[in-house]
C-alpha cells in the first residue's frame, strides 16, 4: 500500500463518530478546530462524511445500538483508514465496563469487520487536546 500510505499521511481528514460518549471527548475534539489548537495547520480537517475520511475518531463505549452503525461507518471509509480510539471509554469502556450498556470495546467491534484495521489509542478521560494531537502525530509516524 506504499503510495497510498504516503498520501494518507500528507493531510489527514478525520470523521468523528460518537458511539456512546459523555461528550467531553467530543468537546475536546471540536476544541481542536478552534483557534487555540487549530489542527488545520497540520492539514487535518474534520469532514462531514465517512467517505471523505482518512481517519475515524471514535469516542464512547460503543453501546449495543451503535455496534452495527460503527461497523457500517468504518466500512464506508476509504481504505487505508486509521481508527483513533479517543478516551478511556472507547479504549476499554472505562467506568462503564461493568454495565449492560456495551457488549464490546470499540477495537473489537472494528476488528470484527476488518481484522487488519489500523487502530491507535489515545487514553484519558478525556484526553487533553494536546494529547490527541500528539497521539495522531505518533501514530502517523509509526505507520
Amino acid at each position, binding site marked *: 500500500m506504499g503510495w497510498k500510505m504516503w498520501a494518507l499521511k500528507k493531510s489527514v481528514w478525520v470523521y468523528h463518530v460518537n458511539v456512546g460518549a459523555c461528550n467531553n471527548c467530543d468537546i475536546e475534539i471540536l476544541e481542536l478546530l478552534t483557534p487555540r489548537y487549530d489542527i488545520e495547520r497540520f492539514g487535518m480537517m474534520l469532514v462531514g462524511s465517512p467517505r471523505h475520511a482518512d481517519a475515524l475518531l471514535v469516542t464512547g463505549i460503543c*453501546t449495543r*445500538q451503535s455496534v452495527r452503525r460503527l461497523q457500517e461507518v468504518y466500512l464506508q471509509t476509504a481504505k487505508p483508514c486509521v481508527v483513533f480510539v479517543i478516551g478511556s471509554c472507547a479504549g476499554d469502556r472505562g467506568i462503564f465496563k461493568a454495565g*449492560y450498556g456495551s457488549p464490546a470495546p470499540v477495537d473489537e467491534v472494528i476488528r470484527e469487520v476488518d481484522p487488519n484495521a489500523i487502530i491507535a489509542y489515545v487514553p484519558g478521560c478525556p484526553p487533553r487536546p494536546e494529547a490527541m494531537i500528539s497521539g495522531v502525530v505518533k501514530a502517523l509516524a509509526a505507520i
Partner: protein
Amino acid sequence: MDSILETIKVRLASDLLSLSVPSADRAFARVQSASIRRCVAHIWNLGGRLATMTGIEVRDGIEVNYHVCFDGDTLVITLSALAPWPEPSLESVAQDIPGALWIEREIHDILGVSFTGHPDMRRLVLPDDWPEGVYPLRKGFEA
C-alpha cells in the same frame, strides 16, 4: 408551602395513604394505586411541575414515584404508588401531562410496568436488539 400541603391533603383525601415531611422543602406521600392519575392531576393543577418519575423494584411489585416540584414554593413532593406483581401496571398520567410521555416509556422499558392509556408504548431507551421481557433494572438481572 404549608398551605400547599394542606390543600393537597384535602384534595387527595381518602386516596392518601400516608404523608411524611422530613424537611421544610421535601414531602413524600403514598397514594392508592388505582387513583394515581387523579392524584397527579390534582397536584399538577395546583401548579406543580412533574420533574420525573422513578420506578423501583420492591417486594410487592414495582413502586413508581412521581416527583413534582412546586417552583416558587420551594417544595418537592414525591407521590408514590405501587404496581403490584405479577403484571405491574398503572394508569398513565401522560394522558394529562405530555411531559410524562417519555419517562413512562422508559419505565416500561427498564422495569416492565405497563401504563394503561399511554398513547405510544414503543421502546425508547433500550436497543432494538434487546430481548423482550428482560428488564435491566429488576433484581436478579445480570449484565
